[in-house]
């Protein structure tokens, strides 16, 4: 029950938890954009780059991103297992994507290890698959750190503040936000209610997991009907309660919890900017850093 109401929220009071929700949202967006700055193999080769340069650039960039991510997890004090759990939902997608890349790589390939019909395994394909898997992995797991460290209520609040400029073009941002908060607020209540009704009907020997889909739906009626009735009752009561406290929408409304940027928020933004810059440095070979690395690796080999 708790799982749904709090989303994935994992309370630890860490510095990541205490960051401003708006900043966290922005940082996640920056993080996602950053991941897309790392080019794919195809792209890089198409622009006339060579494979070994690519491998060094991409791995440097990925190492920076991963380091950043690992440090964030450690700071958030969320158990690593919880973070990895979010990947489970898309693991299948990642595997399929990587497998397609691996077996059906169609770009120009320098080292082909195996070829039969349309199936071919090449060095480029292998690197492609690895990059794609890594990117998807980081893409999914980054936002999950946001939901693990931010309550749904903070998220809607943050979103409302971020989207506020849209009120200029008559988007009812406040109303949307209040609908979202009420919905979030009522999810646990409804689940609790559903649990209670289910228990009451079970006590009258109701069976919920017998037979085919139609039978199951029919079996759920003794739960759905009272639940629907009570949601309407609740909606009425809530509307009266809000009315009697003179709720009238966004106009003239002030906040109890004013979101204020603190030092840690600026530090977080600075760190994110630095990481982003580092990725760009490696990918676009600013100051010849990557060239230097390539040469060093060459000497070492």
């Amino acid at each position, binding site marked *: 029950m708790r799982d749904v109401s709090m989303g994935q929220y994992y309370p630890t009071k860490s510095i990541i938890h205490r960051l401003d929700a708006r900043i966290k949202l922005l940082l996640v967006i920056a993080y996602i954009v950053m991941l897309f700055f790392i080019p794919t193999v195809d792209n890089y080769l198409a622009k006339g780059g060579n494979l070994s340069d690519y491998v060094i650039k991409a791995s440097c960039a990925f190492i920076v991103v991963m380091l950043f991510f690992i440090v964030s997890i450690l700071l958030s004090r969320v158990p690593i297992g919880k973070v990895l759990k979010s990947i489970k939902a898309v693991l299948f997608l990642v595997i399929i994507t990587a497998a397609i890349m691996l077996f059906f790589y169609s770009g120009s390939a320098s080292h082909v290890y195996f070829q039969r019909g349309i199936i071919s395994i090449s060095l480029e394909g292998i690197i492609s698959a690895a990059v794609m898997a890594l990117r998807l992995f980081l893409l999914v797991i980054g936002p999950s750190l946001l939901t693990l460290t931010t309550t749904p209520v903070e998220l809607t609040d943050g979103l409302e503040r971020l989207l506020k400029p849209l009120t200029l073009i008559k988007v009812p941002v406040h109303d949307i936000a209040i609908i979202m908060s009420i919905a979030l607020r009522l999810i646990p209540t409804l689940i609790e209610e559903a649990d*209670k009704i289910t228990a009451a009907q079970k*006590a009258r020997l109701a069976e919920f997991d017998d037979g085919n889909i139609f039978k199951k739906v029919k079996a759920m009626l003794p739960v759905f009907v*009272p639940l629907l009735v009570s949601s309407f009752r609740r909606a009425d009561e809530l509307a009266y309660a809000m009315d009697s406290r003179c709720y009238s929408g966004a106009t003239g409304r002030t906040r109890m919890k004013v979101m204020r940027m603190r030092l840690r928020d600026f530090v977080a933004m600075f760190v994110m900017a630095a990481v982003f810059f580092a990725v760009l440095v490696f990918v676009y070979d600013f100051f010849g850093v990557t060239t230097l690395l390539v040469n060093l690796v060459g000497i070492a080999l």
Partner: protein
Amino acid sequence: MSIVIKELTHVYSPRTPFEKTALDKVSFTIEDGDYFGIIGHTGSGKSTLISHLNGLIKLTGGSIVVNGIDLSKKYDYKKLRSEVGMVFQYPEYQLFDETVERDVAFGPKNMGLSASEIADRVEYAIKLVGLDYDKIKNRSPFELSGGQMRRVALAGVLAMRPKILVLDEPTAGLDPRGKKEILDLTLKIKEHCPTVIMISHNMDEIAAYCNRIAVLGGGKLEGVFTPRELFGRSDLIERMGLSLPTAALIAKKLRDRGVQISASDEDELVSAILNARRASHA
């Protein structure tokens, strides 16, 4: 036949940050024919305790034997749930069917009884809760008054002819008259269903109707008492954040002012006060 609870322990969300011990080694026995009260504050574990009695919460620590059915072993939960009728708080919120008759028939139908047996039981249960069977059977439960709805919900459980009836705050949200009606109804029901267990946090109700009372606090059993024993334990009642029944409270206040009387219900209080007056006039 009885309910024997030994070392019952239940932990919600174990091994997570939300871990909460709802019941901690609770042991007591409910005998046949008891009108057994369970009293305690919100969060004391009352509801968790009774949800164990018909297997709605799986037993994870300790043991419970209900009328010979050992819940720590594999058991026939259909049989258990027909023996232990469970009326939750605000039972009228569980009504769902188109007519009162069909709603009350839900339990017996799930028991797999014959059509004639179901019809008999529905009529029996609706009459038992004091409603006019012929007038009400074809009405929608949603157009009844709150008090009637609660009775229909109660009938829905009684139609299963349980041997043990568990009532979770049966008077919640009713006015004083509605409360008394429902409580008096439980006495009538008790003639058909010999063991009644009532959860409440209202001492007056518990004092007037129960013969034995278990006091729960923070998941622990503070003891099982007769009403008279319990009202002698004002230290415990205070510590549990409960209040004495009104009659006992008045008697206590009079005692504090030097009138030597004791009483556990209204009748006793009235005669005790009259006696005390007579004694002081004599």
